[in-house]
């Protein structure tokens, strides 16, 4: 298979040898973690296929779209509004930041105590192994945490098409004004890139496509809460990860198909694990593709993940964008309202995130919360302590995990995770 794509990869300027290594590791990880799962819904076959072609067919599609005149925009954060991108007939792709690559080169540019996510973004660039990054016409950085904000200054030397968006740090009126100004500026930039003027009909259509994608995930999130749990947390995470890469309409259809199957499973009381398995809610830093380490540990220790309060998960897809406006201005306001509700830890104060977690514990009927913090991620590690305290005050067992992408601490983590599962039983 990979033979067919070699020329394509070469034309994108990838380092074929390094890229081959990455694909092999990815394939093996997927095989070991995903294909060894029991009782998967048949509809996951689509996502297995997407994963096997994540650097193949999907890239070919993107290149075909580019030939047809569409632009590709890459992003690192759920604050980049896909509605606006789609309204200009462009494609938004999330950029992989879920694996270590070319670490020696990365550490020449970034301090060692930078989070894995940021290092990964640089590793994929320096190693020339990400076809998404290389096919992007515009890469959007955002001033969220200090790590990202400052690292974009360095990334700017490595790429020619970086666009940096400012993001407020407070949910105040001024904060909203800033987001509005930045989304307007982004809209202009996208229009300039694509040569398309965004009108209300276009914006409405963009909103509809993204909303449908979110609605499908909302449905999935409700269904997977059944007992016994009909879908593994790993598979749910995969779907949430593919959310950022796949063609949105096809993705929505495929998720809805899985949902139909889950409904049948629920009727037949068919679960991935027998009834009574411990139910875990994950909360914290986003788990970008192919970061499956912690969910894999949890689900091979006899528990099942019923939700993830994360940007690759509930935090990223939570609210719909109101589509009732008639003018570009009204629709833009609706977009701003929708994104301003994202409770990322870069905001201060950020009590609403805690409310979200507590609500999810209830609706998911979780027995406990595992807070996932990437090492050196100040915003989430800082919050992890107050989150833990608040949850424990409500008698919700909580385990704080701090880790990175390397596998060296797997056994230690496994002990903690297993002990936590023993504790909540």
């Amino acid at each position, binding site marked *: 298979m990979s033979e067919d794509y070699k020329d394509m990869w070469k034309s994108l300027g990838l380092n074929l040898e390094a890229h081959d290594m990455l694909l092999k590791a990815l394939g093996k990880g997927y095989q070991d973690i995903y294909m060894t799962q029991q009782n998967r819904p048949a509809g996951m076959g689509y996502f297995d296929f997407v994963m096997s072609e994540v650097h193949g067919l999907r890239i070919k599609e993107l290149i075909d779209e580019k030939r047809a005149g569409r632009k590709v925009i890459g992003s690192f954060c759920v604050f980049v509004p896909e509605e606006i991108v789609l309204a200009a007939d462009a494609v938004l792709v999330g950029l992989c930041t879920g694996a270590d690559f070319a670490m020696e080169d990365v550490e020449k540019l970034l301090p060692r105590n930078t989070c894995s996510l940021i290092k990964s973004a640089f590793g994929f660039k320096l190693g020339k192994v990400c076809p998404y990054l290389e096919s992007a016409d515009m890469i959007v950085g955002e001033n969220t945490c200090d790590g990202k904000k400052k690292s974009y200054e360095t990334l700017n030397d490595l790429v020619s098409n970086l666009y940096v968006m400012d993001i407020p740090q407070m949910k105040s009126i001024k904060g909203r004004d800033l987001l509005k100004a930045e989304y307007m500026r982004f809209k202009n930039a996208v229009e300039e890139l694509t040569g398309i003027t965004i009108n209300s009909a276009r914006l409405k259509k963009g909103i509809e496509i993204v909303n449908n994608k979110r609605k499908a995930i909302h449905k999935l999130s409700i269904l997977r809460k059944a007992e016994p749990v009909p879908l593994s947390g790993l598979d749910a995470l995969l779907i949430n990860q593919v959310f950022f890469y796949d063609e949105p309409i096809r993705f929505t259809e495929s998720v809805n198909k899985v949902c139909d199957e889950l409904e049948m499973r629920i009727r037949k009381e068919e679960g991935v694990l027998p009834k009574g398995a411990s139910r875990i809610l994950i909360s914290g830093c986003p788990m970008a593709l192919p970061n499956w380490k912690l969910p894999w540990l949890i689900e091979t220790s006899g528990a099942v993940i019923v939700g993830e309060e994360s940007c690759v998960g509930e935090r990223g897809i939570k609210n719909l964008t109101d589509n009732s406006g008639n003018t570009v201005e009204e629709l833009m306001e609706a977009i701003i309202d929708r994104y301003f509700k994202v409770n990322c830890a870069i905001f201060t104060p950020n009590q609403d995130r805690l409310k979200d977690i507590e609500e999810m514990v209830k609706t998911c009927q979780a027995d406990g919360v595992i807070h996932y913090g990437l090492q050196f991620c100040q915003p989430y590690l800082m919050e992890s302590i107050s989150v833990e305290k608040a949850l*424990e005050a409500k008698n919700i*067992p909580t385990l704080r995990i*701090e880790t990175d992408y390397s596998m*060296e*601490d797997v*056994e*230690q983590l*496994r*002990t*903690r995770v*297993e*002990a936590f599962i*023993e*504790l909540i039983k």
Partner: protein
Amino acid sequence: MKYAGIDIGSRSIEIVVLRNGNIVHSAKTDTTFDLLAQCKLLMKGIEAAKIVATGYGRKLFTDESGINHVEAITEIQAYALGARRIYPDVRTVLDIGGQDTKVISLNSNGKVVKFEMNDRCAAGTGKFIEFMAAALQVPIESFGAFALKADKKIHINSMCTVFAESEATSLMARGEKPANIAIGLHQAIVDRTFSMLSRVDGKTPVLFAGGVAHNPCVKSLLEEKLRDTIIIPDNPDMVGALGAALYSAGR
């Protein structure tokens, strides 16, 4: 009917066998590089209805020992069970072993409510003490007693094994008494442990297990800091294996 518990740590392996709730056998050996062979050696001649494994080698043991009736539990659960058998009112279990430190908080019914473990670095574990004893050229067994001879407590800033060693060496070069440095190093590990204890909101009585519980200086500094006495069982190394054996026997 006999029930066995085996605690497979990175440095040593312990086994405890129970019959009618009483310990009828216990033994200990080094882990070495061939963990499974060492386990087999310890298991020789032991006929147990069920074996429960704990410790970092528990998975390997359950998967590859070829024994059928084995189960695995974590060290957290094993230590909690073992400690409660030794001292039924215990509310906090502290275990400082060769490579990790754990603190377990129990409610009044003996259920684990919270636990903390050191992260991947060796700071605050038995390994730290081992390194420091070597740096000061004192045998590890008498390092605690040696530190208790101090006439002054030197403050050591670093908790990192590498940095603390160079700090100790430069203090020696400046002519500081080795015992005074030794007590400073002990204080550093105790401070670290104490912060873990506060994180789980550790209540007294505290039971101290693991190899480092043999060290009298750690015990006395910890008691000073806790303003309370701590309980050290007769065989602090066997608590995990005892807990596993109790679990095996169905408590």
